[in-house]
């Protein structure tokens, strides 16, 4: 069982999505349980995989029994296993959440929605787990197609936003494919480990250089790194709540993962850091993202849109952590991938819950919601504080690592910018929180006034995932030390 776990975690959701269509034609009601069971299984599998990796070290799995580089190979080290757990757990939680949202927004499309959702999860897992650059491209395309569709069935402007995303995303994927081609023409191999062996002799070849450039740009588009983020705000604003929650919390993170893979596994840190100033450039771009995202977040009046800009800033944080290229910073980046996944999922899910109840997500629409849905709003506030980076919530601890990393690298300016953008995000969020808790109610204010607002909490199937995320944010931060010593310290690439 554990020997086959690496493939099972992919094909179980995959086959489930195929069966889902047929079952859906027969009994529509069975789709939801099927999805839940499948994703629950993948969570268990991912945990067992991480366990195996911690105990036995790196897992190699040969698909079709062909030895690399001729066949495709799965290589799972601590990094993949870490990301796998994040993706599978978040997808599981959001699948539970999705029920009421789907019933409300597009009841007649349930079957196909869940099929595509499973395919999306499969794609992300496949990207994360594979050890072959072209195989990664294939799963990247599965993911992209699925998410284009899921975004397009959203609210008013969604199809246009999705189309723009499709254009940008295709450019990104094609750039990635070009990068694969250039590496192939230079080395004749497609296997990441094999490439890692062959490339060092060719570091001065111009083809390899350009390949690297195309890889980074393509992936940067996929993970919405400023200034290539233009597709993101519209897409995540108009997408259905479930989709924006899932995409925001996992897709950008997986993009970062791919970038790390390319920069430090396919290429060596020696190449990405020393021979090219790539990390330097990335650092400045990312700090631009932090500031820009923070400022634009303040300018927004719609909460989901504001969250999208904050997501852009958060991607900036992670990339900063990678770009300072030392142990502290990298650790901070990975911790932030985990914590930010939780935070963003919680925020978007809470916003979706408000959408579900009130039908709008404008900041004004959040007025005095703490009486209507206290628990949801509490979760929202916790996640917001974590995103700002206030102790004792999770975000603080990862930012602590990030700033220390920037300082260790002697990049004081990055440290200062990190704190500055935290302030910007704080302003953005407290505009909302103030509305939630203290906005003067419209009617006479005499302590009795608000009692008229009946308590009308989010339905349980939505509330439980939100609270799970909030609890995770509350607790995980204190265990960051353990997480680092158990997993993350092994993911730091050599030469840091």
């Amino acid at each position: 069982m554990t020997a086959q776990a690496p493939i099972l975690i992919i094909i179980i959701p995959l086959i489930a999505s195929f069966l889902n269509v047929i079952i859906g034609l027969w009994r529509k009601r069975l789709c939801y349980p099927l999805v839940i069971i499948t994703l629950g299984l993948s969570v268990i599998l991912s945990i067992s995989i991480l366990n195996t990796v911690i105990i036995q070290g790196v897992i190699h799995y040969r698909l079709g029994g062909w030895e690399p580089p001729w066949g495709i190979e799965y290589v799972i080290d601590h990094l993949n296993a870490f990301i796998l757990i994040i993706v599978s757990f978040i997808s599981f939680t959001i699948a539970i959440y999705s029920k009421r949202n789907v019933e409300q927004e597009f009841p007649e499309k349930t079957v196909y929605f869940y099929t595509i959702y499973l395919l999306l999860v499969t794609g992300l897992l496949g990207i994360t787990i594979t050890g072959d650059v072209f195989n990664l491209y294939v799963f990247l395309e599965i993911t992209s197609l699925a998410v284009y569709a899921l975004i397009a069935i959203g609210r008013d402007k969604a199809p246009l936003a999705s189309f723009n995303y499709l254009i940008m995303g295709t450019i990104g994927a094609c750039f990635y494919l070009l990068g694969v081609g250039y590496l192939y023409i230079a080395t004749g191999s497609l296997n990441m480990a094999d490439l890692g062996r062959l490339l060092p002799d060719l570091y001065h070849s111009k083809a390899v250089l350009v390949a690297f450039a195309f890889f980074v740009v393509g992936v940067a588009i996929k993970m919405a790194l400023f200034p290539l983020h233009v597709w993101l705000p519209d897409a995540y604003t108009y997408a259905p709540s479930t989709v924006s929650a899932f995409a925001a919390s996992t897709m950008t993170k997986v993009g970062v993962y791919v970038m790390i893979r390319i920069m430090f596994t396919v290429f060596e840190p020696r190449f990405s850091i020393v021979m090219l100033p790539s990390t330097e450039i990335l650092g400045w771009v990312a700090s631009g993202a932090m500031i820009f995202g923070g400022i634009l977040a303040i300018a927004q009046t719609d909460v989901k849109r504001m969250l999208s800009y904050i997501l852009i800033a958060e991607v900036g944080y992670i990339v900063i952590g990678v770009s300072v290229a030392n142990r502290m910073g990298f650790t901070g980046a990975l911790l932030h991938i985990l914590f930010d996944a939780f935070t963003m999922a919680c925020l978007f899910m809470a916003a979706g819950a408000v959408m579900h109840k009130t039908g709008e997500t404008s900041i004004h629409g959040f007025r005095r919601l703490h009486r209507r849905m206290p628990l949801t709003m509490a979760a929202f506030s916790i996640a917001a504080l974590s995103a700002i980076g206030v102790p004792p919530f999770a975000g603080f601890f990862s930012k602590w690592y990030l700033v220390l990393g920037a300082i260790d690298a002697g990049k004081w300016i990055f440290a200062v910018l990190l704190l500055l953008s935290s302030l910007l995000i704080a302003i953005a969020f407290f505009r909302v929180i103030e509305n939630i808790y203290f906005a003067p109610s419209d009617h006479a204010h005499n302590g009795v006034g608000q009692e008229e607002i009946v308590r009308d909490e989010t339905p349980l199937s939505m509330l439980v995932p939100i609270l799970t995320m909030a609890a995770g944010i509350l607790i995980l931060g204190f265990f960051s030390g353990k997480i680092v010593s158990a997993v993350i310290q092994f993911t730091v690439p050599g030469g840091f």
Partner: protein
Amino acid sequence: MIGRLDNVVIQTVCRLLIPPIQLFALYVIAHGHYSPGGGFQGGCILGASFILMVIAYDIKEAKRMMSEKVNTILSSLGVIIYSGIGVVCLILSANYLDYGILNKILPVTIAEARALGIFGVEVGVGITVMAVMVSIFLNLASGGEHGETEE
């Protein structure tokens, strides 16, 4: 969008053409081992034959022969065949998609088992490609109007 055009010539020609086209498609799928061809190519040709019929007659006609439901089932059936073969290999305690192991249940050598596995896979691919080509074409051509609203 595509209205009914009663043109006897076209319809007769299509009636004559479609069977050989489909036969050729099957040949392309089956003979992929020894000549250029395989699942995708054959599937595309097979799908094209149906599309030709839609053009010659109209969508109602096509749906009588190949309803939306059948289409969907076929498209997932093909992929299930593909991944199913992989799962069979898993059950026979080999790695995923390691067709060589099929010689445990088939009276052939490992190499031939692989050839058979390839064939089965190609068939699956062909089915999916054909079904999806048709369904995409129908959906695009009719703007989704024709799809029977499922209960």
